[in-house]
């Protein structure tokens, strides 16, 4: 059991997560939404990486043949974060491509306007 001050990295990660999460949900501009998505993803990564950190220990790269568990930090979260970074860059690329396409068609980045335009288009048919 710890508190806000000792778990500072975790708390900051949650704050960042909430900033990203809210702007992904509420921002109307698509590019801003994607920035929010990226902030959310990096916040999750920070949260995960902070779980692996152990005070006063070094990166898990074996040096001088020392293979004692007590001298390195937990390597597993780093591996998971690597995976998570790949996922987030893939998703970002896809979302940006969707944005470019929508902009080509509707000439706006505002989701609401795009939505109205699309509805009207459907009604026309």
């Amino acid at each position, binding site marked *: 059991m710890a508190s806000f001050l000792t778990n500072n990295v975790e708390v900051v990660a949650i704050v960042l997560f909430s900033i990203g999460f809210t702007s992904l949900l509420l921002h109307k501009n698509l590019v801003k939404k994607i920035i929010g998505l990226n902030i959310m993803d990096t916040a999750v990564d920070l949260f995960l990486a902070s779980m692996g950190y152990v005070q006063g220990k070094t990166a898990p790269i074996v040096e001088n043949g020392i293979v004692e568990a007590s001298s390195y930090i937990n390597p597993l979260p780093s591996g998971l974060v690597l995976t998570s970074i790949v996922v987030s860059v893939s998703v970002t690329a896809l979302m*940006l491509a969707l944005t470019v396409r929508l902009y080509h068609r509707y000439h706006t980045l505002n989701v609401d306007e795009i939505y109205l335009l699309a509805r009207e288009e459907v009604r026309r048919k």
Partner: protein
Amino acid sequence: MNLFLWILLGFLVICALAATFHRNLLSTVIIFMGYSVVMSVIWVLLQSPDLAITEAAVGAGVTGVLFFVTLKKIRQVDDEYSEGKKHEEEKQD
């Protein structure tokens, strides 16, 4: 090192807020790239050099470039669009 970490974490929050609330998209993207660089420094502090390299290459590098190209593409669409319009007006005249 603790103080340094605090400063960097504060910087991250400020960057995130600025990126969310700034009105200019280009500045937003640049702020986001700054955010990524700070993040990679934090990862060095958290003893994860693998992540630091990846974040620097991906977050500040490739993702940033993708955002830039997207914005550029959007401006290009706008340009073509107004050029097309000008063209049409000339024809009408």
